[in-house]
């Protein structure tokens, strides 16, 4: 029975449509109410029957009613599961409450179901396509569904499954074509056509598990029909033979290259699909594809684009070949395990299953009951997605550290070390003498992480060391990965075995010094070349071993905390950022909560220390309470003191000693951070952010300002600049960007920094350090380039430079501790025009194309915004606070504690 009108619930009407013969009813709720007697629909049905069944049926025997949960968070609900529910109802003693679609081995509520049960009809084409987020597979399939649905009497259904990684994400398209309306909204489990658009997936994903015997398998392969067999993992060969698949290959990347399509393979794969699947006559399908191409590209005046696409379609047919399948498995290659053998148990048994696309098989007991997961897990997921990686030339390198600072993925790192450590280095391991005075006689190595690098190219763009003879050659150059891979892997293993330098020996406020600190944020799934992550990584290098992060929802919470793996990690002692995401709107308040709890616990520890001073010794207690913990050395000293304290506490048998033991960690100075994007800070979370900075407590807020809601696809926020096109501002944003920093400065006791790693890394680094050291509220607004800008991401940091040069992005810090001139501008007087800068980015250039006059007007206003702001800030920076200081007696603007 289908419920149409849920509320108001017409109980009599509900009961009236039930046959009087009904003996058992299962009510399916797609929600969960922990602690309730049952889910809402179930309770309504029970109440309706209790009231109306006797009258309706003429007898008092109410049907048995059971309640089930299914499909939470888009969990699959299939005919096999529906059949299991009917089977349960047939039992004399069915489960009164159940779940279906999972394996619950904790409360045993789940129903077993027969995975082979299928209601699929033979005359329905059921095709599954594995692609990359960026390779156009999804849009091609959307288009195929339209072609069949709108040009033939056939019915079509298409559904797309994405993972949440931003770089290198896998998409699976599920497409059905059939002669009758397609009713079942569920994924294809019995595919008669499987296409794998990326050859390297075969190594990691079991793409053929969905194929039925006799299905067609189409593979985008760099190897032709005669050689491909030997390049397949044995498991794939086995499935092809065992299921008697018809196996075809096409070298789509070659066809794309040859026809001027670059890396766009979607049309090529689509053409092959129609040729093989025979849903509609291939000739008709190809005509339709060409028609669609004309419609898409014709109007953009791209006669050439249309021609290239046509050539790709024709080229696809010529390059499509059937593979003669041998009758034996011959391959020595094997599918690689999702995580290395030496990974921790939880990573292997739980996260590894998720990485291998087998998370559905995990039972309830495998998962934490309160949402707590280990950190340091991206290092086990070797995604190896780069085509090119940076290769280091030690002779040219000036050891500035800019590459490492810039890398969004922590995939290029440096170490200095005693030359003695080089014994046992693998052949060819590169090193140079350490430059500079700090580490005389030591060695220096820059190492790429070849399987973690995304190939974004930001590091090479940042590298200032050019060869004088061949200016194209820098101290690092992007080169094809494959020839270097094995060697770099060996080098990396050795590099990792070299100990990190003592944090006390390094100048944290120099680029090079900061880059000798271990990043505690690595290999995130952010877009290749992301502009947000370099800041996040840098902050973890500086404070990660004592920081807590309250992360607003947005890109940073997704690359930060989307299962299976998190980039937040720990150092050799097991310390690292403790991270949590509450909501989109409350990261400032959430972080404030951390601070409140920590301060209270410090108060508690001090109280207990004083109570126990007799047993612990006044000296230890005094040192623990009075250590200011401002320098790295003082913080390390405090850790030592706490360890000593814990040892003594363990020998004291009293409730207070036990309580202090549970809380003594709080005695080590904590660094509390809220992270989020501009959508959070300027819009939905602004009220909270404003309130939290006004409270005067020691919290640090990092705004990763991409000037759009990046995570949801680039909608306008109040940070979006004038004239820029964003979603929800399709006609160009008519008003100027909100000046968040100026608002925050109005409090007087808030540290405010506006920074750009690309434009002025030293300023960014020192401002971050100053902000953290301030024992009051700090707000850092960090310019973060983003794919949403429509720029060449490899040049992201250079774009930031231009943004600062033309005055579009102002660099400054406002430090309340500076009683004379708290506001210090780091930007120089703007040079160059805003328009020249803006039109290099699609967000402004789009408007110039679609509405030239409006663009002209908005860009002129944008220039005026810049000029006005510069005038204002220049004046503010020239104002001294001497007068104010006298009036309030010296400490009117200092930190609150």
């Amino acid at each position: 029975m289908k419920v149409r009108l849920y509320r108001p619930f017409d109980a009599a009407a509900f009961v009236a449509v039930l046959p009087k013969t009904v003996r058992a009813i299962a009510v399916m709720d797609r929600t969960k109410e922990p602690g309730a007697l049952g889910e809402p629909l179930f309770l309504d049905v029970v109440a309706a029957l209790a009231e109306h069944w006797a009258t309706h049926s003429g007898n008092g025997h109410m049907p048995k009613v059971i309640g089930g949960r299914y499909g939470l968070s888009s969990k699959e609900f299939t005919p096999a599961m529906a059949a299991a529910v009917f089977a349960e109802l047939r039992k004399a003693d069915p489960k009164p409450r159940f779940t279906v679609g999972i394996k619950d081995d904790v409360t045993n509520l789940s129903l077993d179901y027969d995975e082979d049960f299928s209601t699929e009809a033979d005359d329905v084409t059921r095709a599954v396509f594995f692609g990359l987020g960026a390779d156009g597979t999804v849009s091609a399939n959307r288009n195929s569904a339209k072609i069949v649905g709108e040009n033939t009497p056939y019915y079509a259904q298409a559904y797309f499954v994405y993972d949440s990684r931003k770089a290198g994400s896998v998409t699976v398209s599920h497409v059905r074509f059939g002669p009758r309306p397609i009713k079942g909204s569920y994924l294809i489990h019995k595919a008669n056509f499987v296409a794998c658009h990326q050859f390297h997936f075969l190594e990691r994903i079991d793409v053929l598990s969905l194929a039925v015997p006799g299905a067609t398998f189409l593979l985008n392969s760099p190897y032709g029909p005669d050689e491909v067999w030997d390049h397949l993992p044995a498991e794939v060969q086995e499935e092809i033979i065992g299921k008697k698949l018809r196996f075809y290959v096409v070298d789509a990347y070659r066809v794309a290259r040859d026809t001027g399509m670059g890396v766009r393979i979607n049309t090529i794969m689509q053409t092959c699909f129609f040729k093989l699947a025979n849903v509609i006559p291939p000739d008709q399908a190809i005509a339709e594809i060409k028609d669609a191409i004309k419609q898409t590209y014709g109007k953009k005046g791209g006669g050439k684009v249309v021609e290239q696409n046509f050539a790709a379609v024709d080229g696809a047919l010529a390059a499509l070949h059937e593979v003669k399948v041998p009758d034996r498995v011959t391959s020595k290659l094997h599918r690689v395990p999702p995580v290395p053998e030496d990974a921790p148990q939880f990573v292997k048994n739980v996260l590894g299953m998720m990485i291998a696309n087998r998370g559905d098989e995990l039972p309830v007991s495998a998962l934490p009951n309160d949402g707590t997961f280990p950190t340091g897990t991206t290092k086990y997921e070797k995604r190896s997605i780069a085509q090119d990686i940076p290769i280091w030339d030690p002779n040219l390198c000036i050891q500035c550290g800019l590459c490492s600072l810039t890398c969004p993925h922590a995939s290029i790192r440096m170490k200095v070390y005693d030359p003695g450590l080089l014994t046992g280095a693998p052949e060819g391991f590169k090193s140079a003498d350490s430059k500079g005075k700090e580490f005389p006689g030591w060695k220096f190595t820059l190492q790429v992480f070849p399987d973690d690098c995304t190939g974004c190219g930001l590091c090479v763009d940042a590298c200032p060391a050019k060869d004088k003879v061949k200016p194209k050659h820098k101290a690092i150059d992007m080169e094809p990965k494959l020839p270097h891979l094995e060697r770099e892997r060996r080098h990396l293993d050795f590099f990792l075995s070299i100990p990190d330098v003592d944090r006390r020996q390094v100048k944290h406020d120099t680029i090079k010094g900061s880059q000798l600190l271990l990043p505690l944020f690595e290999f995130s799934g952010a877009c290749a070349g992301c502009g947000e992550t370099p800041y996040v990584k840098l902050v973890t290098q500086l404070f990660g071993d004592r920081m807590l992060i309250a992360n607003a929802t947005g890109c940073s919470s997704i690359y930060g905390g989307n299962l299976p793996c998190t980039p937040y990690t720990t150092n050799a002692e097991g310390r690292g950022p403790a991270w949590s995401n509450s909501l989109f709107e409350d990261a400032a308040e959430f972080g404030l909560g951390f601070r409140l709890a920590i301060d209270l616990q410090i108060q508690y520890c001090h109280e207990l220390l004083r109570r126990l001073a007799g047993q612990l010794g006044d000296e230890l207690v005094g040192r623990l309470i009075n250590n200011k913990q401002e320098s790295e050395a003082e913080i390390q000293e405090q850790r030592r003191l706490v360890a000593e304290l814990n040892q003594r506490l363990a020998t004291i048998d009293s409730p207070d000693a036990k309580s202090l033991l549970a809380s003594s960690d709080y005695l080590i100075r904590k660094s509390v951070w809220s992270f989020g994007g501009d959508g959070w800070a300027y819009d939905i979370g602004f009220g909270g952010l404003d309130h939290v900075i006004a409270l005067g407590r020691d919290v640090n807020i990092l705004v990763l300002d991409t000037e759009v809601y990046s995570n949801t696809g680039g909608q306008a926020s109040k940070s979006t600049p004038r004239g820029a096109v964003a979603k929800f501002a399709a006609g160009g944003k008519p008003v100027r960007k909100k000046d968040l920093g100026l608002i925050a400065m109005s409090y007087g006791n808030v540290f405010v920094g506006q920074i750009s790693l690309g434009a002025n890394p030293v300023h960014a680094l020192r401002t971050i350090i100053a902000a953290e050291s301030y024992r009051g509220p700090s707000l850092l607004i960090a310019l973060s380039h983003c794919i949403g800008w429509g720029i060449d991401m490899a040049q992201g940091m250079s774009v930031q430079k231009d943004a600062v040069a033309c005055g579009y992005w102002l660099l400054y810090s406002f430090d309340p501790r500076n009683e004379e001139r708290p506001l210090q501008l780091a930007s120089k007087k703007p040079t160059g025009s805003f328009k020249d800068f803006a039109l290099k980015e699609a967000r402004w250039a789009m408007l110039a194309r679609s509405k030239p006059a409006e663009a002209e007007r908005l860009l002129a206003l944008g220039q005026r915004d810049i000029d006005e702001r510069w005038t204002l800030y220049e004046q503010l920076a020239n104002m001294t606070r001497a007068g104010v200081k006298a009036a309030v007696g010296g400490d009117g603007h200092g930190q609150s504690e």
Partner: protein
Amino acid sequence: MEKRPFVTVDGNEATANIAHMVSEVMAIYPITPSSGLGELPDAWAAAGRKNIFGTVPDVVEMQSEAGAAGAVHGSLQAGALTTTFTASQGLLLMIPNMFKIAGELTPTVFHVTARTVATHALSIFGDHSDVMACRTTGWAMFCSSSVQEAQDFALIAHAATLESRVPTLHFYDGFRISHEVNKIQLLTEDDARAMIDMDLVAAFRRRAMSPERPVLRGTAQNPDVFFQAREACNPFYQACPAIMQKYMDKFAALTGRQYHLFDYFGAADAERVIVIMGSGAGVVEETVDYLTARGEKSAW
């Protein structure tokens, strides 16, 4: 043991007194009729009144109940026993965080003076429309129906949640109980110490976020595992009623006042029963007494 004096106070003061004793952080925001619940601890803290742990609770006013809930969530995650007070529209603003606090099995108590949610009109007066809007959040919902119970249940709730790990919404009728002045037997700090199990407090602190032993919370999950992970909390809900009863029994041993998950009053052979929650219960009780004295078989 300190002596338990009799005092004549309103429901809010009776409750706030307990909240102050057993909390470390309170993030608050004013709304009638719960404002008094926050104002009293704020004044007590300003005067240096300590909780049973020996610290002065930190009472912080936020910019909204949404902000208060965010701060409470953060404070709980970082290991402080934290509470808040609200009603009606304020409670609605807390719902997003309440889902998360429950989903993370975090012990806490929110004290709610149940108040009408604005519909065709705003009303500052009492009914259960606000707390009923929280049914899906996964919180335990614990209703006291008199000034005495407001105090007693407040302590039982704070003690029990530490063991059950199910956060608890303790509510009583706005105005009718929050502002009713009645003579009650006051609980003492010794009572609070007797009820709060310090081993459970230590366990709570060990689960707190700390860079010394970092974990990741508040992940984003996909269809592959979300459902399974969502079912993993079931045992805590199954155990929760018995744990609540256990602390009611412990409370009874301490004070002589015995409460149960459901209390039945009236004739053992009753033929007509009223089921009711909140301040209306006292009304029915009085009526039942009256009627049974005259031979009616009624109960509540």
